[in-house]
């Protein structure tokens, strides 16, 4: 019986997965029982829910059922406290064997409670808490101390804070007194926080000393921990109760990002759970919130100008944080809220949502391929970061070509052709839409901003008014200009968004100037065009015309203006067309330049022109009063011919009388007979974060197996070299002498005779590598073997080693191993809720087999382009991953057959055959894996999976990456015995495996994702008033609304279609460009091209925030560097001997001259080229002098000059 609510179909799906997991488990179980591994059982317990995971990760035994009961009875947080209490009471054992049973009880209680709070997935309960101790106050009373470690970070702020709360609860239940810090101890925290911020890194929140003092004095347990960074504090040293004089990073995290930052949240829990002794938080909170309010006021978040009409401008302040630092080689696509940036579009496509935003594939090509599928962007709003995925159902970018023509680039192919092949894009006037789902606004609690004018909104308006439109338009999504104008006029509805331009990007005066300019144009019929007097008779042969305009509009007339780009006036007006985003072709014939506007109907209509036909000619009139009143000035304006007249233009502006008119939108609506909506209220800025990733996980250096050979294989760690040289090296591993044959065995079964051997950790052991090699080859029935890369030594506690056979088989199949014995593939997390068979390269038949019987419309599956709803545990891996997994499956099959002596399992030779196989998905900083099923592969270099699946690994999709590995691989080869015996060693290891995805138990962030097939009209209308996301929550259905019902798994909707989820560039330019110089050059080139980007600012920021710190850091590092030896020895300071103390070889500097100078030339030439400020130039000059002073011998220099004079 499943414990989640599902439909029958989904029930089958889950049961199939469970069945497959179990059959895989059985195969592995029989293999492991042969005692050929470091441990004879599978070391990954299966968990069906959170309670199982908690027990699997931190224990205690038998706790899961009680957790289940308590959670369903009380809810998660109260249950965590209750379970802590019960553990302390000894309900789950008394730890009598522990060194201090009371400490052990308290520790178990805190760990288990924290595991419940964090859903039993992240590693924090295991690794983030180093220990819990009962210590003494100076008055003799006892108190509780929690020792935090670095990995507590993985719990997140709230859970860190709750861990402290749990500690307090445990303390009370054990009858302990509160922690009474002395002044020195309090001040120690103040100093440490300060030092951490200056030497290690900033916290998300920078507390004032007084806040820290209040907190430490009042928190009833001691928040302490182990040293995490080798930074010594200066004052408050050698305190009796503080074990270290270095920074306690974990403790500071819990204090600052936990208790202090999340004070409001703890307070809520404290109130709810009625816990005493936390009232001081209220004072702290009120103090803090008043501070924050004042900050927010400074930022002046939003301001609504209520003085005008409906066309009033809305002031939305730019958020500049994302552009605070700019990294070399990673371009800025749009400066904060800058005109021409990304236009905010509400909605979700089948591959967006959950912190991933959609971009037009044309934009991705126009970014010189810096925006590839999966590339992370740091964004201005609503969240901090997002991931790029292609969505072509949104507004396309507008570009200007070197010819002067302006086009909206709807076709990615044309974007590619003109930008990448022909390199004819001279400016990107508008970057196109950024598709953001409502859920991301809700998640980030970002005010809903006014919606841009878009087709969905228009459609909702028409529907609400019961106006039929499908009959009117040939294609409502792609109307012709005349259809759009005619429809708007007839129905008295606003003009179609397709022809609603960015009028608001220019001033109202400019609008009049444009009218004056356009009034000179002529409407030419096809006859006129082809006539002998025509200056555009050859236009139909023009490539740009064909590419962009030869579409099915059936235009009978072209609107043509003569264009003289030598006069200031003409240039000015042409620029207006560009800024407003009115597409036009610049075409010259017979040395006469023409501007041709194809969409003249909506343009002229918007500007209040009337077109009358007199005979064969059309007459254009504009009798608008605003226009006529200012005609004299406009005429004067048109006489501005030369460069100097710019001043005059400005002066004329002030003479134009439009005082009663608010802005250009207001004016346009007064001019035009049809209602023209504001195209866009806010542009969103973004810069590149990190590139997408899809690569097999390799250790450094990459190895095939966890078989240690010390230094005998040289730097490349090839066991083949060791065998050839007959070399071996001292190892620190577990070994035993075979009681039967006397062989020195490092395996539990003697490799020579197969007898059981007792292993014990021993230092300075030398294994007979040659024997092991021979035996392994013989076992695998191989004569010889190519390169096999091994490790230097084990870092685990017992130092048990992996059999050499596994390494050999991996090498043969060209796969690598991770520290825990698994073979992994990393890729960027990207969401997908619906897919097409053609996108995943899996046949329709196979998909039917996998349970995909019908498409989203309920039609039976027969075609590879039908849209299917993805099942929640299914994943679409990148092609390179699929290729790697074919190798891995071959490795496993070889292993089964040749090493364990059982049948092959996968039997796979082609990529397609892997569809349907089970994998584990797992994120760093967690200790629980999630079972998934491969449904196919995509050519995009990302891991497309259901948002729930990503959330089950505690990941959102804003550019994070994590790993896939084959289920059987994990069962067979994973062992806890391999995990490094150090803090954080158990992170990123599948200590427990979740088999069934319960949306309730995944990261709550995904619950905010919206699931509608379209947003309601009310949402768009309300967006203008900029409500909080909660105020409009009832208009939008999200995952949260579906939890606990069958609908939680099926029927999720999306609002915008994507033709293909794999269109657009596949590899970010950042990865294909070579040197840093090339990267930065390309970065600035993109910036130069984009209207919304100020490349000078980019150059300055790159120098200031990337190059200069790097230069200074390396310069400093050079002057205090240590040295190392190729044998692996490291020295803090150069030994006087001058050679390695251990092996006597020549030493190597750890910071070379090259590393110091790396960015020197690049930054200086960049500073010159992009006219960086004098301060920056001077700073670079000083650094240059500093470098020269270290690396140029002045005596030699002088000598040379002296020579010269001789």
């Amino acid at each position, binding site marked *: 019986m499943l414990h989640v609510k599902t439909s029958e179909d989904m029930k089958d799906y889950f049961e199939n997965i469970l069945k497959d997991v179990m059959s895989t488990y059985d195969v592995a179980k029989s293999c492991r029982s042969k005692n050929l591994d470091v441990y004879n059982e599978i070391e990954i317990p299966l968990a069906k829910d959170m309670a199982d995971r908690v027990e699997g990760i931190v224990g205690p035994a038998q706790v899961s059922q009680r957790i289940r009961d308590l959670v369903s009875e009380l809810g998660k947080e109260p249950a965590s406290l209750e379970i802590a209490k019960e553990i302390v009471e000894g309900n789950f054992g008394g730890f009598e064997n522990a060194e201090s049973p009371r400490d052990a009880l308290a520790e178990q209680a805190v760990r288990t409670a924290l595991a419940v709070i964090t859903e039993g997935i992240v590693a924090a309960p295991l690794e983030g808490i180093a220990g819990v101790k009962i210590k003494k106050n100076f008055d003799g009373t006892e108190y509780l101390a929690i020792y935090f470690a670095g990995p507590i970070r993985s719990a997140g702020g709230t859970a860190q804070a709750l861990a402290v709360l749990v500690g307090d609860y445990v303390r009370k239940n054990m009858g302990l007194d509160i922690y009474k810090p002395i002044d020195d101890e309090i001040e120690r925290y103040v100093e440490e926080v300060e030092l951490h911020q200056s030497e290690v890194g900033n916290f998300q929140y920078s507390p004032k000393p007084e806040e820290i003092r209040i907190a430490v004095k009042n928190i009833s347990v001691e928040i302490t921990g182990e040293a995490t960074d080798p930074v010594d504090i200066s004052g408050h040293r050698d305190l009796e109760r503080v074990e270290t004089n270095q920074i306690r990073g974990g403790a500071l995290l819990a204090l600052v990002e936990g208790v202090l930052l999340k004070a409001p949240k703890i307070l809520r829990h404290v109130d709810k759970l009625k816990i005493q002794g936390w009232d001081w938080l209220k004072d702290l909170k009120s103090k803090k919130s008043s501070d924050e309010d004042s900050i927010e006021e400074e930022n002046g978040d939003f301001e609504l100008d209520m003085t005008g009409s409906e066309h009033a401008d809305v002031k939305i302040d730019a958020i500049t944080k994302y552009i605070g630092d700019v990294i070399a080689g990673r371009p800025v696509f749009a400066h904060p809220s800058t005109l021409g940036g990304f236009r905010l579009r509400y909605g979700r496509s089948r591959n967006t949502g959950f912190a991933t935003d959609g971009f037009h594939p044309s934009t991705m090509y126009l970014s010189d391929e810096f925006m590839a599928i999966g590339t992370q962007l740091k964004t201005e709003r609503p969240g901090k970061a997002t991931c790029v995925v292609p969505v072509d159902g949104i507004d396309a970018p507008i570009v200007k070509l070197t010819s002067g023509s302006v086009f909206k680039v709807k076709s990615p192919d044309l974007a590619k052709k003109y930008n990448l092949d022909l390199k004819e894009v001279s400016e990107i006037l508008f970057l196109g839409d950024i598709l953001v789902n409502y859920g991301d606004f809700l998640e980030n609690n970002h005010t809903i901003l006014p919606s841009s004018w878009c087709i969905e909104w228009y459609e909702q308006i028409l529907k609400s008014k019961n106006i039929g439109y499908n009959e009117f338009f040939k294609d409502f999504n792609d109307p012709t200009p005349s259809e759009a104008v005619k429809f708007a006029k007839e129905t008295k509805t606003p003009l179609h968004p397709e022809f609603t331009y960015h009028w608001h990007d220019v001033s109202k005066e400019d609008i009049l100037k444009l009218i004056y300019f356009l009034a000179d144009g002529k409407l030419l019929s096809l006859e006129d065009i082809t006539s002998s007097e025509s200056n555009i008779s050859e236009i139909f042969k023009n490539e740009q015309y064909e590419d962009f305009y030869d579409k099915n509009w059936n235009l009978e007339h072209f609107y043509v203006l003569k264009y003289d780009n030598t006069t200031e006036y003409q240039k000015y007006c042409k620029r207006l067309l560009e800024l407003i985003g009115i597409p036009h072709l610049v075409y010259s014939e017979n040395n006469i330049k023409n501007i041709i506007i194809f969409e003249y109907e909506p343009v002229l209509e918007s500007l209040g022109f009337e077109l009358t036909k007199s005979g064969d000619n059309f007459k254009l009139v504009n009798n608008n009063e605003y226009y006529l009143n200012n005609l004299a000035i406009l005429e004067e304006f048109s006489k501005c011919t030369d460069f100097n007249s710019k001043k005059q233009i400005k002066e004329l502006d002030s003479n134009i009388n439009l005082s009663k008119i608010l802005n250009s939108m207001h004016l346009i609506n007064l001019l035009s007979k049809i209602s023209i909506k504001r195209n866009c209220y806010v542009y969103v800025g973004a810069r590149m974060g990190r590139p997408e990733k899809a690569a097999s996980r390799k250790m450094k250096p990459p190895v095939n197996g966890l078989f240690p050979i010390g230094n005998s294989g040289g730097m490349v760690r090839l066991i083949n070299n060791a065998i050839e040289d007959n070399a071996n090296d001292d190892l620190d591993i577990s070994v035993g002498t075979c009681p039967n044959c006397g062989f020195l065995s490092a395996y539990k079964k003697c490799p020579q005779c197969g007898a059981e051997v007792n292993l014990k950790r021993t230092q300075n052991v030398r294994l007979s590598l040659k024997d092991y090699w021979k035996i392994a080859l013989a076992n695998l029935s191989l004569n010889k073997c190519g390169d096999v890369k091994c490790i230097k030594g084990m870092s685990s506690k017992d130092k048990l080693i992996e059999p050499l056979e596994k390494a050999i088989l991996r090498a043969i199949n060209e796969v690598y191993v991770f520290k825990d014995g698994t073979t992994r593939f990393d890729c960027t997390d990207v969401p997908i809720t619906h897919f097409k068979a053609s996108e995943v390269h899996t046949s329709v038949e196979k998909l039917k087999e996998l349970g995909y019987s019908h498409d989203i419309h309920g039609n039976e599956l027969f075609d590879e382009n039908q849209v299917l709803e993805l099942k929640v545990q299914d994943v679409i891996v990148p092609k390179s991953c699929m290729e790697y997994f074919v190798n891995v499956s071959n490795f496993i099959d070889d292993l089964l057959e040749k090493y364990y002596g059982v049948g092959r399992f996968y039997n796979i030779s082609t990529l397609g055959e892997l569809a349907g196989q089970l994998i584990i998905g797992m994120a760093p900083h967690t200790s629980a894996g999630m079972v998934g099923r491969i449904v196919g592969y995509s050519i995009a270099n990302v891991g497309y999976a259901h948002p729930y699946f990503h959330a089950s690994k505690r990941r959102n999709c804003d550019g994070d990456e994590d790993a896939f590995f084959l289920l059987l691989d994990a069962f067979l080869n994973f062992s806890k015995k391999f995990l490094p015996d150090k803090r954080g060693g158990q992170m990123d290891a599948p200590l427990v495996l979740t088999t069934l995805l319960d949306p309730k138990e995944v990261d709550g962030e995904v619950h905010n994702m919206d699931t509608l097939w379209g947003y309601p009209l009310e949402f768009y209308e309300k967006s203008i008033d900029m409500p909080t996301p909660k105020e409009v929550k009832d208009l939008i259905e999200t995952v949260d609304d579906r939890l606990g019902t069958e609908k939680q798994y099926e029927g999720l909707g999306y609002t915008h279609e994507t033709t293909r989820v794999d269109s657009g560039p596949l590899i970010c330019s950042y990865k294909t460009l070579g040197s840093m110089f090339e990267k930065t050059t390309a970065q600035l080139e993109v910036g130069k091209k984009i209207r919304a980007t100020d490349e000078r600012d980019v150059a300055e920021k790159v120098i200031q925030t990337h190059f200069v710190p790097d230069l200074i850091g390396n310069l400093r590092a050079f002057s205090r560097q240590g040295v190392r030896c190729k044998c692996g020895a490291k020295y803090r*300071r150069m030994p*006087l*001997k001058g050679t390695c*103390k251990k092996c006597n070889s020549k030493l190597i*500097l750890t910071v070379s001259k090259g590393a110091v100078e790396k960015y020197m030339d690049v930054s200086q030439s960049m500073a010159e080229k992009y006219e960086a400020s004098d301060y920056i130039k001077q700073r670079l000059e000083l650094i240059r002098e500093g470098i020269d*002073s270290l690396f140029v011998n002045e005596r030699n220099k002088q000598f040379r000059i002296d020579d010269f004079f001789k």
Partner: protein
Amino acid sequence: MGPIMDIIKLLLDLEILVSPTCYNRLKSFKKPDLENLISKISKFKNSKKDFILLDNHFMDSFLNNDVNDLIIEYANFDFIKYYIGNNKEVQNQEIMSKLDKKLSEEYALIDSEIKSEKSIESKNTKEIASNEKSLTNLENLEKNDKINLDLKEGTNNDEEKSEADIQRDLKLANRLERFEKIKSIRKSINSSFKFDSKDIETQVKVYEDTDVTGNSTCEGTLDDFITYFRDRYETLKTIIERKYQKKSYPLNKAYTKKNEKIFLVGIISDVNTTKNGHKMVEIEDQKGDFKVLIMKNKIDNKEIFGDILLDEIMGFEGTVSNDGRLMFVDKTYRPDVDVKPAKKIDEEIYTAFLSDVHVGSHEFMAKTFEKFIRFLNGEVGNSKEQNIASKLKYVSIAGDLVDGVGIYPGQEEDLYEVDIVSQYEEVANYIAQVPEHIHFVIGPGNHDALRPAEPQPTFTQEIRDLFPKENVTFVSNPCSVNIHGLDYLLYHGRSFDDVIGQISEAQYTNPCSIMQELLKRRHLCPTYGGRCPIAPEVRDYLVIDKKPDIFHTGHIHINGCGNYKGTIMVNSGTFQEQTSFQKKMGISPTPAIVPIMDMSNMGKIVHEWDNGALNSKIM
């Protein structure tokens, strides 16, 4: 546009620039007064073609004097020298180019004034300025084209840009006014003060072998590091051996002396405290390494030193264990300085000790510093002050003249002057206001515009040229200088940050507690790899080769004086108020206190010029 604009333009036509103060004064002028002034100026210009900056001084001259008198008075006046300062020998052309630069700066300044003026009346007019600029800068034509064509969408940008321009120009104006003010300090003081030290000959001799300037051989190679540490070891080993008359035994042979008593000298590689509190010390020489064990009880009884720093050079005496693997230490030896009474000279001459002036920082105490310059000029209150000011002959400066640029991230926010050369120009202006008979010895610090790695060579020629030539001696950091018979060791003190973390007795609040640790070890930066960067020169300039009579440091902004075995230690304070960083770190500096010592009475009394008052303390 007000009439004031016309006047500025008129003056510009006459090739007259107006200083910001004058500009402000002009604004309040009545029309007849203005006309009067302008007619005078144009008449003056007719007879003398020199370029003129109308500053307060000249304006007053023009207002209060007959123009004919002025023409006579200034007939032979060297305006160029007046504006540019002391570079008489500089070639004519260079003067012209400097003048050009100044001129263009001045124009920019006035330009900005005009702009800011306009911006009040109408924002749009800013365009004019940028147009004019773009005309002059044909290379930028294209880019400007883009900007100007951007029109309304560009206006936001343009506004920001011209605001930045205005900011920059305002800074320029402020700078000129500051300089003007500094340059008038000396004039405003009664010149009848009698300086006894005027008749005393300056005697300053830099020990060349301690000054790295021009001798940096470092190329950043592996061998540089080997040579550097070997020199440190050899020099200090020799000192130890000579001092205690013992010959050290080679470490690689020490194991052979089982159960024997031997003497070892090594550089410390590692110090570990055992479970029982004993100290296991790894030492090294050029041939090998060895372990020595120091028992806890011996440290507790203070029989031997427990405060062993990494990389210091020490001698150990003890018995090698019977397995030959380590030595049990009976006695430890440090190079240390010899005990001698403090040296003094016969004449009553005073030296003032300065450091960490931090010109350029918002926290620089300009007013108080001016007061100190006035004191040096003989502006005194009582007879004691009069005596000292009169006999003050030397000023020793141990680094951080200016706040520098790019010393820490985000520093530009904390600076009122972001141009490094101008920062130095400002200090130089102050020093130029000190009577020429007072001699300065100046070494750099970590905020100065030099390589951060120690030893730091002295300032570049470009910067040195800003200062008066006759009475300033520039030295490296560190450097030994003989001043009037006493040996001064100047060191900025960067290594203090490292020492404090390691020796519990060494405290920020008591600088001498740190300084004496360095003297004991005869090394200015004993531990390598900490916050103090080291340049591996062929010689270790940081070794205290010769015992100094006076050890002068700065860096931590806290005053302190002391006497260690006859070496007088002075840590001079600062002229920078508590910075926000220091506030966060809980460091309370002691700004504006200048220790002044009588060279004929060293180690007895220290006088302190404290924010304008003079106090004397027994050391």
